[in-house]
C-alpha cells in the first residue's frame, strides 16, 4: 500500500468561541488543499470524521455540508466511530483510493465541543458506550478509571507512573503552537488536581476541545513525499464488562499487528508514534498492546523517558490528546498530520531526529474501535 499524504491543514486547538464547526472545517481544508498544490476541482471525494455535532447542535448530513462549502459537488461522506471517527475517515478514504474509485480525496476531522455544557458533552460522548454502562451512571473517565485500577491491581502500576504520561505530553505540547495547552505541568500538579473518577484526576484527562484537521490523500504518485503504508482497523465489544481482560485492548493488538504486517516493518523500526492518550492509562495500554514494551511494563517504560522527545521512540510529540487537545472527530486526522510533519522534517522544536517511520493509533470508546496507520518517507 502506498497512499501519499499530499497536503495537511490544522487549526489551532482550544476553546475557539468565535468559530463554528464549519469555520474550522473550511480553515483546515483550504490549508490542506493549498499545501497539496492541487486545484480543489481535482478532489474526487470528501470524508468528514465527526462524532457529536448531530447530538449537540442538530447538524447531520455533514459530508455535503463541508463539500458544498468548499464549492465541491463530488462524493461526500460523514464517518462516525466515536473518538476514532477521524482515523476511520482516513481508513475509508484510503479504501476508495486503493479501489481506484478516487484519485485525490480530502479527509476532514472536526469537532465543536465548547458550545455545550460539560454534562451534555459527557452524556453525548457516552453514546459510544453500552446501555448498561450508561444506566450505571458511568462516564468515560470512570470507565478508564476502572481500567487504571485493574492495571494497578495486576501489574503494580503506580499513580505516579500514570501521572507522568501527562507531564511528558505537556512537555511536548509546550513546543507545539497549535496545542490547546502549550505549557508544562509537574507531577505534583497532576496528582493534586481535582478528582474526576478515582483514581483519575482532572490532569489525567484529555480536555473538551474545538478544532479541525484535514489531509489531502492521493493514490500512488511515485513522487517523493510521505506515504501511508498501512491502514488497519479492528473492533471489540462496546461493553467493557464483556471483555476477557481489563488490562489490554485486543483491538489495538489486532490492528497494530495487521498494520505492521501491511507495512512490512517491525515495531522496533518505528521512530515515533502518536497514540490515543484520552486518559493517562490509555497511553500505557497502547505502549503494551502495540508491542513497544512487555505487557504490564507500560508505566515503567514511559517513566524511563524512552518516549519523551530525545528518547528511543518519542510518543505524542504533538502533546497528544491530553495537552494538544481532543476535538473528538479531528484527533485521528491530527495524528496523521503530526507524523507527516515529523517525516517531512518540519516539526520545528519538537522534531524527532532521523524520523523515517511513524505510527498512529486512534481509539473509539474503550477500545471497541481501533485504527492504526503506519507512515513512511
Amino acid at each position, binding site marked *: 500500500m502506498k497512499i501519499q499524504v499530499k497536503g495537511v491543514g490544522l487549526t489551532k486547538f482550544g476553546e475557539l468561541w468565535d468559530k463554528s464547526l464549519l469555520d474550522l472545517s473550511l480553515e483546515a481544508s483550504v490549508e490542506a488543499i493549498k499545501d497539496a498544490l492541487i486545484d480543489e476541482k481535482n478532489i474526487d471525494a470528501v470524508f468528514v470524521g465527526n462524532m457529536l455535532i448531530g447530538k449537540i447542535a442538530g447538524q447531520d448530513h455533514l459530508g455535503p455540508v463541508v463539500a458544498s462549502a468548499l464549492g465541491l459537488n463530488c462524493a461526500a461522506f460523514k464517518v462516525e466511530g466515536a473518538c476514532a471517527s477521524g482515523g476511520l475517515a482516513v481508513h475509508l478514504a484510503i479504501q476508495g483510493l486503493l479501489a481506484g474509485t478516487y484519485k485525490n480525496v480530502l479527509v476532514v476531522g472536526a469537532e465543536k465541543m465548547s458550545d455545550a455544557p460539560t454534562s451534555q458533552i459527557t452524556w453525548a460522548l457516552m453514546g459510544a458506550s453500552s446501555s448498561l454502562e450508561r444506566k450505571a*451512571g458511568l462516564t468515560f473517565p470512570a470507565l478508564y478509571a*476502572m481500567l487504571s*485500577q485493574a492495571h494497578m491491581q495486576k501489574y503494580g502500576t503506580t499513580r505516579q507512573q500514570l501521572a507522568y504520561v501527562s507531564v511528558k505530553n505537556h512537555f511536548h505540547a509546550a513546543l507545539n503552537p497549535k496545542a490547546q495547552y502549550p505549557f508544562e505541568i509537574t507531577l505534583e500538579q497532576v496528582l493534586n488536581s481535582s478528582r474526576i473518577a478515582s483514581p483519575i484526576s482532572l490532569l489525567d484527562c484529555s480536555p473538551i476541545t474545538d478544532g479541525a484537521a484535514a489531509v489531502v490523500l492521493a493514490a500512488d504518485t511515485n513522487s517523493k513525499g510521505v506515504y501511508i503504508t498501512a491502514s488497519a482497523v479492528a473492533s471489540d465489544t462496546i461493553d467493557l*464488562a464483556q471483555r476477557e481482560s481489563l488490562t489490554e485492548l485486543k483491538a489495538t493488538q489486532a490492528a497494530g499487528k495487521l498494520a505492521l504486517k501491511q507495512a512490512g516493518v517491525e515495531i522496533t523500526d518505528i521512530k515515533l508514534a502518536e497514540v490515543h492518550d484520552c486518559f493517562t492509562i490509555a497511553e500505557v495500554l497502547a505502549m503494551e498492546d502495540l508491542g513497544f514494551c512487555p505487557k504490564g511494563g507500560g508505566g515503567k517504560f514511559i517513566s524511563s523517558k524512552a518516549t519523551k522527545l530525545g528518547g528511543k521512540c518519542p510518543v505524542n510529540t504533538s502533546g497528544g490528546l491530553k495537552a494538544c487537545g481532543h476535538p473528538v472527530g479531528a484527533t485521528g486526522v491530527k495524528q496523521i498530520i503530526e507524523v507527516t510533519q515529523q517525516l517531512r522534517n518540519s516539526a520545528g522544536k519538537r522534531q524527532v531526529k532521523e524520523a523515517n517511520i511513524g505510527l498512529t493509533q486512534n481509539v473509539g470508546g474503550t477500545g471497541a474501535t481501533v485504527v492504526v496507520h503506519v507512515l513512511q518517507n
Partner: protein
Amino acid sequence: MSSPVTVWRHHKNIRNYLNKRGKILVWTKVFTAPAGFEHEAPYFVAMVEFEDGYKMPLQLVEVEEKDLKPNKKIITVVRKRGKVGIDEVIEYGIKAKPL
C-alpha cells in the same frame, strides 16, 4: 430522561438480575457525573462478576469507601435510577450492595 415505553420495557427485565450474588472486580468513585446523575455525585460504580461468571457494571449503594476492596461480596437490589421530573415516570434499576 427515558420515555415511558422504554422504562416499561426496561422494568420487565429487572427480575432477571435480582438477588444475584457476586464480587467486585474493580470500582471507581464518580465525581463528575453525566446529565441525569449530577444530583447523586459522588457515587460508586463497580465492575461486578456474578457467581455464574457474567459481568456487568453496577452502581453501588449502602457502601463505605473504606470497605471497598477487590473480591468484596455483593448482592443485587432494586433502586430508583437517575433523576425524574414531577410528572415523569420513575425508573428503577439494578444496583449492588455489599454483603
